[in-house]
């Protein structure tokens, strides 16, 4: 049975004064796959460890289901929170076989030894490792170890599964395959999942909900589409992928939420205004790679012109880096056809991919 999670005004300060979490509040519906996204030092691992009970909270409250597991007075130890976890370096006990590693997580279910072994074998079968059940962790590849760790997290049917950057130690190809497997298996288990990563592509691919953390604060939470199309802050916009950013002058505000702006070297275009008010005539526009298209220089509806400084083949087409008036560079500008380095090109901007924030933010 999946559990909802309630996090209220959570704070965590380590000895020495490092404030890792500040006033974090979040509601997670039962069965939701929540991805916490943020750079190193943003507090996502600390938040996960507070949820697990490995770290004590300094202030605020955490409830799993209807039970408060941490607040100023209460600290329920990890073994009594009925959750499971996939660790960044898997944390497989090196002296236990794959089967025994998985079976360990069933101890809390008070099953017989043979029942534990049978279930562990079945779970290893589900993750495709039935034949390797007797092997020790050092006899398994990185991907196989990762599956054992996943099997250990899934076997006890806990209502909450925590994943601490489980794909970060894998190479690109295996990472993508394991991402799909994790997504399928945890959804099949129907548990609430909290998964942390610093990779926005991984976050968007996996999540029902994304929470973005910056220096210990939760700066935005919502479905991945919302995070991408309506970033709440310049930090969220930057961290979730930009082609580039530059200053503009605000010319005209529309009722549909878009604003007409004028770049220093180019033609006026429309951008989507952020939630906060724009103070003064100057603003900062942040452009998603999907918000800019390449066209011939000198076309009628070109907003900006620039010179191609780099081009990279990406299989389905080409990504270009464009230098605009020597001071601004847009990267990841996609086109199916290749444009040679040094050529002048025109750029057309889509308001849905251009996000406007107050200047200096």
């Amino acid at each position, binding site marked *: 049975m999946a559990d909802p999670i309630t996090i209220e005004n959570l704070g965590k300060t380590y000895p020495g004064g490092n404030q890792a979490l500040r006033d974090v509040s979040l509601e997670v519906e039962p069965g939701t796959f929540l991805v916490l996204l943020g750079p190193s030092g943003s507090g996502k691992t600390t938040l996960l*460890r507070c949820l697990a009970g*490995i770290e004590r909270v300094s202030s605020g409250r955490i409830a799993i289901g209807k039970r408060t597991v941490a607040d100023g007075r209460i600290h329920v130890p990890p073994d009594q*929170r009925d959750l499971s*976890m996939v660790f960044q*370096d898997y944390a497989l006990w090196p002296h236990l076989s794959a089967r025994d590693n998985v079976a360990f*997580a069933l101890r809390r279910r008070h099953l017989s030894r043979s029942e534990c072994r049978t279930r562990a074998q079945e779970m290893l079968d589900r993750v495709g490792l039935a034949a390797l059940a007797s092997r020790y962790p*050092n006899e398994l590849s990185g991907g196989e170890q990762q599956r054992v760790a996943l099997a250990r997290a899934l076997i006890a049917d806990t209502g909450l599964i925590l994943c601490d950057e489980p794909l970060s130690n894998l190479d690109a190809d295996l990472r993508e395959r394991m991402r799909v497997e994790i997504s399928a298996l945890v959804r099949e288990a129907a548990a609430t999942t909290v998964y942390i990563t610093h990779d926005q592509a991984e976050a968007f691919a996996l999540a029902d909900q994304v929470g973005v953390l910056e220096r210990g604060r939760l700066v935005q939470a919502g479905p991945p589409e919302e995070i991408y199309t309506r970033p709440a802050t310049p930090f969220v916009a930057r961290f979730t992928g930009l082609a580039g950013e530059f200053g503009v002058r605000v010319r005209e505000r529309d009722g549909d939420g878009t604003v007409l702006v004028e770049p220093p070297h180019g033609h006026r275009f429309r951008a989507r205004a952020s939630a906060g008010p724009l103070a003064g005539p100057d603003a900062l526009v942040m452009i998603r790679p999907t918000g800019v298209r390449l066209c011939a220089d000198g076309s009628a509806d070109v907003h900006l012109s620039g010179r191609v400084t780099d081009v990279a083949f990406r299989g389905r087409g080409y990504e270009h880096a464009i230098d605009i008036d020597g001071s601004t560079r847009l990267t990841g500008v996609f086109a199916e056809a290749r444009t040679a380095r040094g050529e002048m090109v025109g750029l057309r901007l889509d308001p849905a991919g251009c996000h406007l924030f107050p200047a200096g933010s």
Partner: protein
Amino acid sequence: MPLFWLLLACFILAPCACFLLLAVSPRLFGQGGQWFTLTYLHQALTGATAVAIVNSLWVSSAAAVMGVAIGFPIAWLVARTTLPGRRFLPGAMWLVLLLPSWLPALGWERIVQPDGVMYRLGLDWPWVTHAIMGPFGVVLLLGLRCVPFSYLAITAALAGLGQEFEDAARVHGASRVAALRLIIPILAPAIWSALAIGFAESISDFGVAATLAYNSNFSLATYQLYAAIGNFPPSFPLAAGMGWLLVAAVAIPLALQARALRGRSYAVLSGRTRLAVRRQLRGWSQAGATAGVGLFFVVALGVPGFGAVSASLLADYGGSFKLTLANYHALFAQTNLAAAAGGGLLSPIERSLGYGAVTATITVIGGFIAARMLARRRTRATGALDFLLLASVALPGVVFGAGYIFAYNLPIMSRLGINLYQTVTLLIIAYTAASLPTNARVLVGAVSQLQPSLKDAARAHGAGAVIAWARGVLPVVSRPIVMAWLFTFCGVFLELPLSQLLYAPGSPPTSIAIEDNLSNYHFGVGMAQAVLAVAICLTAVGVVLGGYRLLAPAGWRRIGSAIGGGRG
């Protein structure tokens, strides 16, 4: 390289092989009529020698267990708790390791002997004398010596045991105790290693066997082997038979440990291992842990140190506890006693300083060459070298010394014009041969970090061969080389078994001079010599490490501390 192999064969392999072969084929060396016999092995397993072997076996087993029982909690407290003063403990452990076993044994003896410090202080406790001057005391001293080995082995394992293993157990339902039970087996290789090394060190120890155990009439195998050669008439074949038993006693646990762990890597280090959280010690737990660790150092260093220093400040005769500097005056003055000792009481110390410096320098050069060979691609030759060096590390010093006496006393040596027996040269060669295997093992870790690209990069960017070596190689190995030099210097300066068997007549090194003084009842002067020797040793360590800290470029020290951190 052929010259290096020739030297290894002449100075490590041949003497020991000849000596051990003698036990089964005395006629091969003109020591009897049989080409093949098991008589001497059988003799070694009967009578007094059998008693000594049995004593050695049980005493060493108990000492190894004691070493782990004390070393494990100390390592745990240092690595995983906020124990006060934990930063100083590694240095103190090295001090326990650095001191040869005979020095603490003498310190304890001087306290509890009937005319010792304890009685002169008015403490009439014969039961303490009885306990220390017997099997209990032998186990205690050997066990204390095993503690640093356990501590180092378990500390290294704990350093790689990240917090995740415990966290993973906790989040998957294990209580604190169950999590501890789960992760302790991860340390099994370190525990087995500590037990095996502790056993091997104890059974091959000569320092306690020749001092405390001998003076307590408690016979141990290493001393019996020495006695078989030293008594009249000497019986080399019987000594060789005992040598076989000692080698087997050392090799079997080491082999069993290797076999038990074969194919089972417990490697737990990963680049992203999360540092373990230190448990906050408060109140009684802090007081108890501090008292326990303090007690260990008091027993291992404090009591023998007090025994040695106070005995060096007491007159040899009389029953009072009246302190005097007469023994130290005697050391620095030319007295009758000094003249009897052959040119002054300080001469042995000066001599050992020279022996230590020369041996350490030769050994570090040889050890570096051997380490480079071991660090290269594995071939049959490097495999053989690896085995030879490992076997030599495990070989008891007394067997090594006996092998030298026997091999360099053979008539063929005179015929070949090699007259090294009873010369300083042979003693230094033996010191070097005995230290080289350990040195090579210590240096191989640092040398394996040397990528050819380090030197190649310097050459490619215009440096000559010497500059390339100095800039690309030396910084990486400088600290381990300094540590290996110091380790050898101190080891040789206070070495006993080889010195006992091989010193040149009229030129006793420090340990022999101290032993001679003590056996002639010049306790005060002997202990003053011992105190001075330890002080010189510690000063040398301080001067060399301080000099390295002051003179070596900052970058060298950073690299060295990262790579040479293990045993170096």
